[in-house]
């Protein structure tokens, strides 16, 4: 076999490897975007439930009018559409916190707690929360796989050449880790 043929084979193998690794990286990057989109869908579902929640509780919750106005405001802000992903995440955290507060405050209204419509709504909200958490987990797995590919040899070389950098995983925000202090929430 002439040296030329050998060189040709080596170059061929290198190109093939390059293509495979590059495609793998792109696949992982798209998976991350796909995962983010799925969080978005679940968040939209929750936005859709906010007006129902507000109308269900407002006749009962006479002392918490402010919180209800606030959550409606958050919702219209989220629905306006022109938000970056970071802003979306931040707003989403605020909504989670406020909704958590409303759900705890419900405890003070036995009539509301036993209202069938409200129970149904609470079930739907629970489900949406569970789905949001599932899609966050999907996003984190996708990001971890992508980050591994970006940082591990040999795909790290190609990632470096193409300017691909680490992405951040979804962290559970500080406010969610703390127990919700209902009193503070309504006094502010």
């Amino acid at each position, binding site marked *: 076999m002439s040296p030329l043929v050998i060189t040709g084979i080596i170059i061929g193998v290198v190109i093939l490897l390059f293509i495979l690794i590059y495609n793998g990286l792109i696949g992982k990057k798209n998976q991350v975007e796909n995962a983010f989109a*799925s969080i978005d869908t*679940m968040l939209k579902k929750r936005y859709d439930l906010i007006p129902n929640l507000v109308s269900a509780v407002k006749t009962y919750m006479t002392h918490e009018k402010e919180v209800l106005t606030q959550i409606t405001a958050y919702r219209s802000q989220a629905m306006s559409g022109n938000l970056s992903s970071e802003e979306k995440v931040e707003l989403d955290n605020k909504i989670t916190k406020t909704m958590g507060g409303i759900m705890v405050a419900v405890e003070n209204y036995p009539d509301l707690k036993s209202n069938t419509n409200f129970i149904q709504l609470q*079930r739907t909200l629970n489900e949406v929360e*569970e789905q949001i958490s599932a899609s966050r*987990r999907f996003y984190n*797995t996708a990001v971890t796989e992508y980050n591994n590919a970006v940082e591990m040899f040999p795909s790290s070389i190609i990632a470096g050449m193409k300017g691909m950098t680490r992405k951040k995983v979804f962290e559970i925000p500080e406010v969610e880790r703390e127990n919700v202090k209902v009193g503070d929430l309504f006094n502010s």
Partner: protein
Amino acid sequence: MKSEQELEGFYNSKLLPDLEALEVERKAIAKRFWMLLLLFFVLAGAGAAFAGLWEMFEVAIGCGIAAVVMLVVMLIMHHSKKGKFVHKFKNVIVNDIVKFVGPELNYHPKDGINIGAYMQSTIYPRRPDRYVTEDLVTGMYGDTHLAFSEVHSQYKTTTVNHKGQTRTTWHTIFDGVFFIADFNKHFKGRTVVLPDTMEKMFGRLGKFFQKMNFSRPPLVKLEDPEFEKHFAVYGDDQVETRYILSTSLMQRIVDFRSKTSSGVALSFVGSHVYVAIPITKNLFEPNLFKTNINFNLIKEYYYYLWLAIGIVEDLNLNTRIWTKE
């Protein structure tokens, strides 16, 4: 789960009288069996004596034929008596234990999970050539509708050797308790949780083979390292699979595996959860030549029943805080 004292109280007050009545029947069957066996040996011995000592071959052959005919008749009669006894025993004793565990549950000793439901689970995709099932328990436990039975599924292979003789071999696909319950969340796709044999044997290479398994939906990688160590998960929808397998459910499945068998497999299809627990023992069979008035025997029945019915609590299926009621 009921405490051992409760079970013992139930055993003494409810089961003992029935067990004693059944014991009379059991003894009669066993006695008849031994008597006939003795008669068989007497006839066979007489035949041998006539042939060996007195060289009366006609009489010896007569005795021999009588002995063989008796043996056949005896076995047929014994088999039918045994079947009736086992059925009666199950209908009385096992049925009572089932009712003790869950008053809204019903027991059908001769029925089982049908093959359609078994195939629907997609846990074992291979269509069995032989499918045997018995000891069906079905009904409500709390808010959850459930059904389970013993299932033994097999497939056959035929090989032809160099002489042209065909040989059929039966291979077990699944032997154990097959459980179906209504799951507490709505979902559309399929999620299959299988024991992770590949990754255990081949490490990272095993993961590669799992990914290449085209007979299954795509592999889903989950976050819980302990869960991932024991199971390989396949799902149509990445988000839905995680929605079903919440972090707490993954923990519960790991705990369930450690108390049952390393071969436990689950699937979530069409709004139901399917659980396959491999157990080679034939369950809920009474003794025929040994007394059944034995608390340990009842404890064993209770243990296996609870292993299945308890899945409702192990997997928290009665918690219905989601839209599905």
